[in-house]
């Protein structure tokens, strides 16, 4: 009889220890945990899985910095085959390396084939993708950096910008993109090529610098510098002394 009670206690204890309840975060590792009390961080080693009500993450290894106790997480570094999903911020992604600063709500995904997907925007890069959720700043750096949303496609080696919530959708309010070879932007009206392309929502102007081409309807215009007014869809292209503005109007009839 005592044995039965002992067995039941062991069984109940082991079940209760290994079951996550609502509001709790469960972390499992295959090769242990190293806790550094003075330095205030712990290392989760090999095949790490983190699961809470609003967040899941898997990675080869994870380093977690804490403020007060282990639960009080300030920063997370995940390394190797990182895959995550945040229900709260409606964001998912994967890459070779992930850094997440809890206080600033800043997330950085790094490595070849990095992805960061939200409800409104999809971002890809072989370098890194960095998004600060609090202020909407984003930065993509490296080869094959791309950003897609409903209204725009951007391809360039460096994409710096800001999202703001306008009419319940995330819209780009500021943009600076650069590619040594050529940057590409496509919006609802036109396709644009230039080494450097800037956009400011306050002035509603897209500025194109160096090796500029704008394609709209059947028009293809090339030059050295161009501006496009997004309010009235007018644009202007200049050239420096060496080259001329070139206009090609295609007739599809």
């Amino acid at each position, binding site marked *: 009889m005592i044995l039965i009670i002992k067995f039941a206690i062991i069984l109940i204890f082991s079940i209760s*220890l290994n079951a996550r309840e609502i509001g709790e*975060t469960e972390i*499992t590792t295959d090769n*242990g945990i*190293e806790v*550094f*009390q003075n330095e205030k961080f712990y290392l989760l080693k090999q095949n790490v899985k983190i699961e809470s009500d609003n967040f899941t993450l898997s990675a080869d290894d994870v380093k977690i910095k804490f403020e007060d106790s*282990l*639960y009080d997480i300030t920063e997370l570094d995940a390394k190797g085959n990182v895959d995550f999903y945040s229900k709260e911020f409606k964001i998912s992604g994967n890459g070779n390396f992930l850094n997440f600063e809890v206080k600033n709500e800043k997330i950085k995904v790094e490595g070849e084939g990095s992805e960061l997907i939200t409800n409104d925007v999809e971002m890809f890069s072989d370098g890194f993708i960095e998004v600060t959720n609090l202020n909407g700043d984003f930065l993509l750096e490296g080869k094959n950096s791309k950003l897609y949303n409903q209204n725009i496609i951007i391809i360039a080696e460096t994409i710096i910008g800001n999202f703001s919530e306008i009419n319940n959708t995330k819209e780009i309010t500021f943009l600076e993109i650069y590619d040594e070879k050529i940057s590409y932007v496509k919006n609802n009206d036109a396709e644009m090529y230039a080494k450097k392309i800037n956009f400011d929502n306050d002035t509603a102007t897209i500025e194109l610098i160096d090796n500029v081409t704008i394609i709209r309807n059947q028009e293809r215009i090339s030059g050295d510098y161009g501006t496009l007014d997004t309010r009235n869809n007018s644009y202007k292209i200049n050239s420096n002394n060496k080259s001329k503005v070139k206009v090609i109007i295609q007739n599809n009839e």
Partner: protein
Amino acid sequence: MIILLGVIIIFVFLIIIFYKQINLNIIVVDENLNGLSNADIYEPKFAINNESKKIYITATEGNFINKNEVLLKDNVRFKSNDFSIETEKVIFNRTDQTAKSKTKSKFMSKNATIASDGFNIHDKGNKIIFYGKSYIILK
């Protein structure tokens, strides 16, 4: 049909209990063979002195392995202001102020629990390494 199902469940349950009993007997025999069942010290108490905190170590009994090392057994508990660790067997080095355990361990601190297959304490309690498949619950 229900009676038959009931009989099967009871039978399975009895097999599990019987199996557990055998395992317990093996452990008892093993301990006797090791010759460590006679404790050198009962309810030993030690402490790891850290610059910022003190970690108290208690157990039901202990045996001296050598001049420095003590095998602590049964209800071994490490306790500081920040955390506690419970396990069944620990080798504590009094000179180095280190501890190592290969038995199932449970670490508890404010809103956090760690279960592991063992642990090492180094650097006067600053560094704790939990071994094997480990499991954390954060509240």
